[in-house]
Structure formats: C-alpha cells, structure tokens
C-alpha cells in the first residue's frame, strides 16, 4: 500500500489483478447488474488508490476494501431507488444461473434461477449481503465476521433471519 500511495503503477496492477474478480462478484451480488458491478469494482480501486496514504500499515486490506465496495453498492442502489422509474429492470439481469450440471430441464433451470434472483433482490441490503457472502461466496462465519466487523454470533443470527426471509419469498417453500 505504501508503494501504491507513492504512485507505483506496477503495485497498483498487482493489487487489481489480485482482487478484481472478488470485487466484481461481491458488487454483483449486491446490485444484481453486471455493468454496475463492473463500474463499482473499478471505482472501488480508484478510491483505494486515492486514499492509499490513509491505510493503516499492518491492518488487513480486504475488510477495508470491502467496506468501500459495500458503500459504493449502497450509493448505487440509493440512486436507483431515487429514480421515479428505475431504468434497470433487475428481472432481466441474469447475474445468477442454475448450474447446468443439475438434472433439470433448461426451462426449469431458468425459471428457478429467475425466481431466486427476484427473491434475493427483494431482500434488504443487509440480508442480501449476508446471504451472498455465505451462499454464493462460501465464506466461513469467521471470514464474514471479519469482513463485516461484527461478532460471529451476529453473523449467525443475521443469517438465520435472512434465510427465513429468503425462504418466505420463494414459492417452493410456501
């Protein structure tokens, strides 16, 4: 980070190559739109470069980076909500797909994926965040706790309520 703060281009590139996919997929899970997720991931790196000097040496990079991504996602969603007619139809954004290896027909796979996508996007930001981290990034409770700066017990309770809400939004569970 010290090198980045000093404007070292190769250090910037190493950081970007290491975290670009993580940043993109984390943002994608929150906003559900690939173009917006791409922009958010890039804006997050720009913010990192601009404030690299403020980074406390010895502290962990990824939780800090994640908080930047999370804030950018919140801003994007707030802007989307502010528009009288949101110009992005989230139902059309196929950011999550059912794995082709599942023994289901293509139609059934697509229907199921669409239903899960819709249900996830109906969750609050906090619920969606914890669901995406656990179910789609496969993180442990310790990793989530570090990332969100919350105790492990809170991860468990947030997951319980988020799962309950998600199941309530899916037809096959009702």
């Amino acid at each position, binding site marked *: 980070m010290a090198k980045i703060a000093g404007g070292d281009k190769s250090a910037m590139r190493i950081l970007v190559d290491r975290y670009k996919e993580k940043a*993109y997929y984390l943002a994608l899970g929150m906003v559900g739109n690939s173009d917006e997720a791409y922009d958010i991931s890039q804006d997050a790196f*720009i913010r990192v470069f601009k404030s690299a000097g403020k980074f406390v040496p010895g502290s962990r990079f990824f939780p800090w980076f994640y908080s930047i991504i999370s804030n950018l996602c919140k801003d994007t969603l707030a802007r989307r909500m502010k528009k009288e007619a949101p*110009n992005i139809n989230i139902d059309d954004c196929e950011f999550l*797909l059912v794995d082709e290896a599942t023994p289901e027909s293509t139609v059934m796979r697509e229907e199921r*994926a669409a239903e899960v996508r819709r249900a996830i996007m109906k969750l609050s930001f906090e619920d969606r965040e914890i669901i995406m981290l656990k179910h789609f990034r496969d993180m*442990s*409770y310790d990793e989530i706790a570090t990332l969100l700066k919350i105790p492990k017990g809170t991860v468990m309770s947030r997951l*319980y309520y988020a799962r309950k809400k*998600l199941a309530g939004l899916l037809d*096959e569970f009702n």
Partner: protein
Amino acid sequence: MTEKNYKIMLSGYIDGELSPEENTEFENYLKSDPELQKELETFRKLKEVTGAMKYADVPEVVWENYWASLYRKLERGLGWIFLSIGVIIFVAFACYHLVQDFFLDTGQPIILKIALACGILGVIILMVSIIRERVFASTHDRYDEVQR
C-alpha cells in the same frame, strides 16, 4: 437457553459452525421441537437450491481489458481535475480583470457596462437553467437506457 437462541443456532448447525458441545445440545433440543425440525428442512432445501446456482460467467476478454479500462478511468479523472482547476483559475482571473479594467473604469460609457452586465447575467441564467434541466432529465428519464 431459550427457544429463540436455538432457532438462531439453526444457521450455525447447518453450516457446521457450532462447537461439538453446541452441536450435541442443539441436536438434543431439536428432537423435542417439531417446528424447528421443519425449519431445519426448509434451510437445508434452501442451501441445496442456492448451492446449485452460480454467478454468470464473465467473458475472459473483460478481465484482460480490466486494467486498461481502469487506468483510462484514472487518467481521465486526473485530466478532469486539472481541467477544472485551470478553468476556475482562468474564470476568476477574467472576472477580476473585467471588474478592475472595465466596470471600475470611469472612462467606459455606462450604457456599455449595463449591456455587458445584462449579457453576463443572461448567460448565467441560461447556464443554470440548462444544467438544472440536464440534472432533472438524468434522474427522471425513464428511457435513458434506450439506444437511440
């Protein structure tokens, strides 16, 4: 431990995040609570459903061009900052000299000063109006994603 606590432990149980003691305690309680058993089944099924899903793949070319695209953004951001600083300094300098050398100059005809002041005021009003319209359109245009 309360019923609510066992419910919350349900998440830890299906994710394998409970300690061996907590696991045993939870399993003992589970036998006596049919509602919790039902909820356990729901959560297991939910995990199965989401486990069969994955993020849509991103074409490799997107990752190949990622750094170049990010660097362009950085460069342009820097360009805009310098351009803005330059314009602000230039406008401030021009305004200062306009006031000093023209409006405060007693040798200039008063009618010319009024004409120029009206012209400047008109330009400012028009610019504010256009900027306001653009901002309003960008936040309210429901067709701005449609390619024309």
